[in-house]
């Protein structure tokens, strides 16, 4: 996917910059972006190491098993392919728990771990399985209970009522989740019939 999108972005914006005379801003943007990527990686480095370490502790206790049991009905429903694989179920549920708690930085490393385990079971190594697809789709949904980042931003900008949008966020999240599921199911059934999208 990125093999198509990335060059498209580059070709579009570079040729547009040449014709519109924005070359100098583009030049500085290129170098700014690379250093942004590095500084973001360094910001991520600390938190990802921390959460990976914390979650490794949790992984060795019975805590995760208990939470996994709570999520089991949902995981059974969403990931029918991996009903037999306890380890993947555990990793998926840890990712979901981190997402729900709004620990985005913790959710990503946990999610990548689950992806790697699912890849081991994958027969066609270059293609997403149904479980992987479902898992990524869930991770592109913002399923946190309290949108902490937005509330923090609103608070810092001097809002009269920073939390007033929480209810709106819930409604929008649920509607998007329903749409996501419907679209997933629709594409899936079309795909089953052998049509390439």
């Amino acid at each position: 996917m990125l093999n198509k999108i990335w060059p498209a972005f580059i070709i579009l914006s570079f040729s547009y910059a040449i014709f519109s005379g924005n070359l100098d801003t583009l030049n500085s943007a290129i170098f700014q972006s690379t250093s942004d990527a590095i500084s973001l990686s360094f910001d991520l480095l600390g938190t990802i190491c921390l959460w990976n370490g914390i979650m490794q502790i949790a992984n060795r206790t019975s805590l995760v098993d208990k939470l996994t049991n709570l999520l089991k009905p949902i995981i059974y429903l969403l990931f029918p392919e991996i009903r037999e694989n306890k380890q993947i179920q555990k990793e998926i549920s840890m990712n979901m728990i981190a997402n729900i708690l709004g620990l985005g930085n913790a959710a990503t490393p946990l999610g990548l771990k689950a992806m790697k385990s699912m890849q081991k079971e994958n027969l066609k190594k270059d293609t997403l399985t149904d479980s992987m697809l479902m898992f990524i789709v869930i991770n592109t949904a913002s399923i946190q209970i309290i949108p902490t980042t937005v509330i923090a931003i609103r608070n810092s900008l001097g809002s009269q009522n920073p939390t007033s949008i929480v209810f709106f966020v819930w409604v929008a999240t649920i509607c998007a989740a329903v749409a996501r599921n419907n679209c997933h199911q629709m594409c899936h059934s079309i795909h089953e019939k052998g049509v390439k999208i």
Partner: protein
Amino acid sequence: MTIINFMSNLAMPLVILMIALYGIIEKNTVFDDFIEGAKEGLEIVFSILPTLVGLFVAIGALRHSGILDMMIRLIMPFLNMVHFPSEIMPLAMIRPISGSGSIAVAIDIMKNYGVDSTIGKIASTIMGSTETTLYTIAVYTSCVKITKTRYILLAALTADIVGMLVSVGICRIMS
């Protein structure tokens, strides 16, 4: 507000405390486990760094070449048709591709139009209810070297569009 503030401040320390306590109660080598996990974290960051550099350059180019603004002007008539406020459009376009970029754009919108205005609330709701879809898909697929992603982009982006339209609708109706 103070309760939610307290709860969101409490969430992280509480999770760490509970996990550490559990580890100690079950007599695990807690710090060894921690180090083992943290090392794995190091590898994860280094494996996604090249992806980040590549994507950030492409997104930076898109924003600073002026083509993003041009595209927004092009689809303006369509936006007016579905009553989607054009002030929100830069956020809607950057939200799926960049987390830090969309935070910057959202702050910009909230500052310009007022954090408690309808536009400000729409921007907040979009930030809270959607994710950086493209970035998530890129990181999750590239870490296991998968190139055939089937229909995932279509499903995820459809959901984003629905989420954004609902955000606009509910903020208009309720405020």
